[in-house]
């Protein structure tokens, strides 16, 4: 992309999220979300091939509907309560509509249908921005609104998301769709605890962003978008494929990796609130996602040359050099669990 265009696009992305963060008037918040949507459209479509165009169109339509629904909710609230303040969303209809609109924005089940197809149409870096940066603004709204939202709706969204994220990812061979379903499942974990302890939502969001950053950057470094092509990663860079194994297991939530931390703390909070059955359902459906992470890590790291049964040989056009961001995020996504007491006392 032309440097001027990419500067404008990236700065607008930053502007949109910042507007949503600092806004307390509903119109400003809605504006920030719309700026985010519009800013990422050029990034998504700049390669012009039909799949990218289709993904961009689907993204635009869903996000525009979500923003329209959000605007409708805030206008209804303004009509019935007479003010536009973010934290005084007192009309219960408006609160429910806001929840549903934001669920459509971030891709929670049952409003998740756009996410795998959109993510599949993008290249890895744009997909990374879609999965991580675009989640920040809606969560900023949710984290401020948490006492006003309906806990039953949030629990339903959470459980559905983990179930659909787990089951949907099982039949996928494209890495971006796998990451889309992993995103849906992780968002389920984040949303279920929102009403009881929003700090845990925030912690889970940050850790999810770190782990997803690592995964996307790893796939980008290996230049692979399918399970076939990631199978040759251990011959390209054995060290990075070991990091891929650890990161995937961390996404699956296995102790002693740092992906276990949010799951543990969320289960603890759910148990304290006497929501034992939702807690058990969440824990067991996490095993579904673990299955496709494990299968991915089998092809990436644990089966090796000279037995590349499902590997397609590829031209190696660039040397593999892990950059600083990848290594930093990889270390964080593997080793953070012993710091849990420090993290808890800092954020709660």
């Amino acid at each position: 992309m032309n440097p001027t265009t990419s500067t404008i696009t990236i700065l607008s992305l930053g502007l949109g999220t910042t507007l949503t963060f600092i806004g307390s008037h509903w119109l400003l918040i809605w504006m920030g979300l719309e700026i985010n949507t519009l800013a990422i459209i050029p990034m998504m479509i700049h390669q012009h091939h039909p799949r990218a165009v289709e993904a961009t169109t689907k993204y635009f339509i869903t996000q525009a509907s979500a923003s329209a629904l959000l605007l409708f909710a805030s206008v209804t609230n303004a009509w019935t309560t007479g003010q536009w303040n973010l934290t005084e969303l007192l009309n219960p209809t408006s609160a429910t509509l806001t929840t549903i609109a934001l669920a459509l924005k971030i891709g929670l089940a049952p409003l998740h249908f756009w996410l795998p197809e959109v993510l599949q149409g993008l290249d890895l870096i744009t997909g990374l921005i879609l999965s991580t940066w675009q989640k920040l603004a809606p969560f900023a709204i949710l984290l401020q609104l948490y006492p006003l939202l309906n806990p039953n709706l949030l629990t339903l969204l959470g459980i559905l998301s983990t179930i659909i994220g787990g089951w949907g990812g099982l039949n996928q061979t494209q890495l971006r769709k796998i990451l889309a379903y992993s995103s849906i499942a992780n968002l389920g974990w984040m949303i279920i605890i929102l009403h009881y302890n929003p700090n845990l939502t925030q912690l889970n969001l940050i850790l999810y962003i770190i782990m997803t950053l690592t995964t996307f950057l790893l796939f980008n470094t290996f230049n692979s978008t399918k399970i076939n092509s990631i199978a040759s990663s251990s011959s390209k860079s054995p060290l990075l494929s070991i990091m891929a194994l650890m990161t995937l297991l961390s996404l699956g939530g296995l102790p002693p990796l740092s992906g276990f931390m949010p799951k543990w703390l969320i289960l603890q909070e759910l148990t304290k609130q006497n929501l034992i059955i939702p807690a058990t359902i969440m824990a067991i459906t996490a095993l579904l996602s673990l299955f496709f992470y494990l299968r991915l890590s089998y092809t990436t790291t644990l089966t090796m040359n000279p037995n590349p049964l499902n590997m397609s040989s590829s031209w190696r056009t660039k040397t593999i050099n892990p950059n600083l961001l990848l290594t930093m995020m990889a270390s964080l996504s593997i080793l953070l669990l012993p710091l849990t007491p420090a993290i808890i006392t800092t954020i709660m």
Partner: protein
Amino acid sequence: MLKILLPTIMLFPTTWLVSKKWLWPTSLGHSLIIALLSLSWFKWNSDISWDFSNQYLAIDPLSAPLLVLTCWLLPLMILASQNHITPEPIIRQRTYITLLISLQMFLILAFSATEMIMFYIMFEATLIPTLIIITRWGNQTERLNAGIYFLFYTLIGSLPLLIALLALQNNSGTLSMMIMQYSQPSELLLWADKFWWMACIMAFLVKMPLYGVHLWLPKAHVEAPIAGSMVLAAILLKLGGYGMMRIIVMLNPLTKEMAYPFMILAIWGIIMTSSICLRQTDLKSLIAYSSVSHMGLVAGAILIQTPWSFAGAITLMIAHGLISSALFCLANTNYERIHSRTLLLARGIQVALPLMATWWFLTNLANLALPPTPNLMGELLIISSLFNWSNWTITLTGLGVLITASYSLYMFLMTQRGPTQSHITSFNPSYTREHLLLTLHLTPMFLLILKPELIMGWT
């Protein structure tokens, strides 16, 4: 405590920084020194209290034998893997030894943990190095399926355990084992409490394994390389037994009624799995099913919670750990020579490897619980306490002992006696390393004949 843990952690840099020529001698030597130091854990000052403790780790007579076994096993694993790992590139050799050391570290932390959540995290943490050892260094295609079965069976049992522990912390305020032993047994009357009981126990029963949920074990043991099989058989199964012994004190009085289905599965499983051993064609599979059979006895003993049964359970766990690991090493000596696990392909080995036949003989005698081995002491205590619990169990456990003797003898006679196979023309003679390995397995067993109180726990 830290004098063992910190040297174990420092084995990591040792493995990565030592030169290629000295990798195996160094790792072996240092882990042997750590094993020697760990023997100091056997000196405890009073019968039932915690020793060597700091704020997070402590040792009591239940965990001390398991900890010493863990530390003892690492040099044995390194010794056993030396032959088949040495041809690989040096970095993969270092990675393999690092995985073994990390298993040791997690196991030490698991057995000496004083808080149940720490125990849980370390219990789960042992899954990852074992999974990597099985799926990366195993030899057949089935190892991938074995890894999936291993991971998912264990996790389906242990995720409800996590929730049950968090619920217990909510109700009783603490999960420290030191305090839990003094807490009042709570009233457990509702259906939800029955589910809580099951959630606490199932993880350990799957790990032990109990007969109905044992399917992961033959797969994992068979597909793992020798060090993986050794650590699985000797220690990882005992994690289940140890965890069950720790948690079951909190689960009274519900255990009296709820234990019945699991007792049935455990005791019936002894018969079933030992009978399957008589029909196995795969040598490692035979040893794996024999593990299920012995651990069925242990599971039944822990569920009835009497002093004799607990003593028998720990004794059998330690003795079975040593002997099962020795049997896998013996099977590995066959595998390294003919690259097949089929029992029929390596018959009459006594003619080719006479001294190895001695080790086969002694190990099989210990496996069938010959007096005066600690295996017998454990089995006798367990069978007597089961008889006290219900007179009818003696039929099943007695039959189980009989079938155990049959398949142990069958294993010995098939591999050692009989006509030597004519297709085996060149059989490497036994290495000194293999003899050392088996001596290091059997010597502790002989020494334990002289002082079995070390492994009998609280009594």
